[in-house]
């Protein structure tokens, strides 16, 4: 066994070094090799490591970066899987990279962001201390199938995690339904107040009661199907959260100021990322702090300091113009980007890059479920729209049928030209790429303007 572990860890490290030498990311392949050599490698490496797993449909990466900052500030010895390497192979590789050749992890804690489908696999090997479920939304249907299927994956993952405290989003009726048959200690977190002044028109991913199939009523909706829901027939309702956002004081282009209540004590918290959905991410990070017994004051302070994840509201300055990159993966995530954009008061340039590779979702029809009409309604504030990516033409059609004037709508498939043209107006640029489009676009930006590559 020992010798297997040795070779598996070694091969993982060597192959990753090799891949980086030729200038590629290499977040997944080394793990696949290691698993071939030692299928139980993750189980061996993760033993005795205090692991927190972050899963759910949206917000995994940002929540993880927030938790990470709170661990740094609390003096915890840890490693985290970055660069979105969140499949079984990717997670195994991350553990291997942070272990000795003898198979012992060099850190006491691990922070693992895990794909909800891969969580099921990972949880067989990793005995998590806490599992954070961010939310459950309709995702890339060609890959995950329906939301009930996603939910089932998470449920199985949690049932494998016998010793974990489970952190659930109280505002998400799908998410809270996970609490039903679980013996685990549950910690609910949520937002006690509406977030947006006006919300985009969204289709709810869960309009009907998961228990009795009657329609929910809401006291308020924060976004999507999240909010204070209850079923008038069977009485199923939002549980009271023990960590909650009681007030949103400020929510502007650069940050939010919120008041988070942890066990009755309020902490005013500056969230160093704009967007209402990041208020939820901040709240779950506070909840994760509580689950690990960290000082809420420290976690609250960390939220004002953390650096945002890879493509999640990431800011670049190109020719003195701010370019913000906002990764989108599904309609719910995209609607939240629009909720953010529609609160802008200054003119900006918008770019959407749509790819249809496996990691993006091969089916692009979801763009028709998103309320892009709201950008049209903003009039001249949305000065120009650029579309790019493999399915740029489909994206262009979406804006045309959303009524956006075609004179201000441009198809540009070359990323370098796209960036140059977008910044030429000297107005803030918001780029919304799908996953693989973000990788290419980021690659182009790094090369052309000297920003860091993503695995650094």
């Amino acid at each position: 066994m020992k010798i297997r572990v040795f070779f598996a860890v070694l091969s993982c490290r060597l192959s990753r070094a090799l891949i980086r030498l030729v200038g590629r990311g290499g977040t997944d392949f080394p793990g696949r090799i290691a698993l071939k050599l030692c299928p139980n490698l993750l189980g061996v490496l993760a033993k005795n490591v205090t692991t927190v797993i972050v899963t759910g449909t949206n917000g995994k990466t940002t929540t993880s970066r927030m938790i990470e900052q709170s661990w740094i500030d609390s003096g915890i010895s840890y490693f985290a899987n970055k660069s979105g390497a969140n499949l079984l192979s990717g997670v195994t590789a991350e553990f291997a990279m942070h272990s000795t050749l003898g198979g012992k992890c060099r850190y006491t804690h691990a922070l693992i962001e895990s794909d909800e489908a891969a969580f099921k696999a990972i949880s067989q090997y990793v005995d998590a201390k806490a599992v954070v479920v961010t939310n459950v939304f309709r995702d890339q249907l060609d890959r995950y199938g329906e939301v009930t299927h996603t939910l089932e994956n998470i449920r199985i993952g949690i049932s494998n995690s016998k010793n974990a405290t489970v952190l659930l989003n109280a505002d998400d009726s799908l998410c809270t339904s996970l609490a039903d048959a679980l013996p685990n200690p549950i910690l609910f977190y949520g937002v006690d107040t509406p977030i947006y002044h006006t919300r985009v028109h969204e289709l709810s991913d869960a309009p009907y009661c998961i228990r009795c199939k009657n329609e929910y009523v809401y006291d308020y909706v924060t976004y999507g199907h999240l909010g204070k829901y209850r079923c008038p027939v069977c009485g199923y309702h939002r549980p009271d959260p023990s960590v909650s956002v009681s007030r949103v004081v400020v929510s502007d282009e650069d940050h939010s100021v919120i008041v988070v209540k942890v066990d009755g004590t309020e902490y005013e918290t500056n969230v160093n990322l704009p967007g209402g959905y990041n208020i939820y991410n901040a709240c779950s990070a506070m909840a994760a702090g509580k689950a690990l017994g960290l000082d809420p004051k420290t976690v609250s302070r960390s939220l004002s300091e953390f650096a945002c994840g890879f493509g999640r509201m990431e800011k670049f300055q190109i020719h003195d113009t701010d370019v913000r990159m906002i990764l989108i993966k599904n309609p719910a995530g995209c609607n939240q980007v629009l909720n953010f954009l529609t609160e802008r008061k200054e003119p900006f340039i918008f770019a959407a890059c749509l790819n249809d590779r496996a990691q993006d979702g091969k089916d692009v029809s979801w763009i028709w479920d998103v309320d892009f009409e709201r950008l049209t309604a903003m009039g001249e504030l949305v000065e120009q729209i650029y579309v790019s990516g493999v399915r740029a033409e489909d994206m262009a059609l979406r804006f045309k049928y959303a009524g956006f004037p075609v004179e201000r709508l441009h198809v540009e498939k070359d990323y370098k030209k796209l960036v140059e043209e977008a910044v030429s107006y000297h107005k803030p640029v918001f780029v919304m790429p799908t996953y693989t489009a973000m990788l290419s676009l980021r690659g182009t930006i790094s090369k052309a303007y000297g920003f860091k590559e993503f695995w650094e």
Partner: protein
Amino acid sequence: MELKICHLYPDILNLYGDRGNILCMEKRLQWRGIEVSTTGVSIGQPLKAADYDLFFIGGGQDFEQEVLLHDLAGEKTAELKSAIEDEKPFLAICGGYQMLGEYYKTWDGQQCDFTGALNLYTIGSKQRMIGNYCFTCTELDGQSVVGFENHSGKTYLGDGVRPIGKVLSGFGNNGEDGMEGARYKNVFATYSHGCLLPKNPVLCDYILKIALERKYQTAELPPLDDVLERSAHNYMEKRLEKK
């Protein structure tokens, strides 16, 4: 001139961007100065088929489909059938397509009865038929239709129902007989998400024309600037040809 569109179960059958088809029909009418209004009819709301000129049904999740079937049976089914026999145009996509048929039988033999408006049925399989695809449309000479299919049900047509066309690339109705979709009177039923109509403007106009002609005897649809539409269509058509 004015068309009244009925969107059946817009809040439930809304899974794959199918509402884009409604948007496409609305815009292409408005750009030509033709009035249009769309009414959603969902669970618990009565359907008066005589009020509408064109019907649309999309696809949805299994969880919600159960809620829906209960509502659809009885009076709504009778209304739908009479509208179909009355030659009103229908566009039905995926789950909506299956629901116009006789029944759906799961791969382990459980049968779920549908409206029976069209003589066709669907058998569940373990294979998921998924991906971009392309098919001919017999009535649009030389013009192919592109879309995205995602279904595990295999649909078989009975007497009196003909396919929309032949599959050029992909699975189509059942992955076996090389056919896609169903045509009966003025019903167009297909597995094509995409969403379907924006990328296939010729098909969209064809359906709109049928609806207008049925209502006003004659209809002229002046051409629109379809450069973007054509390039989206041609991009996918070429990509699938290369396969």
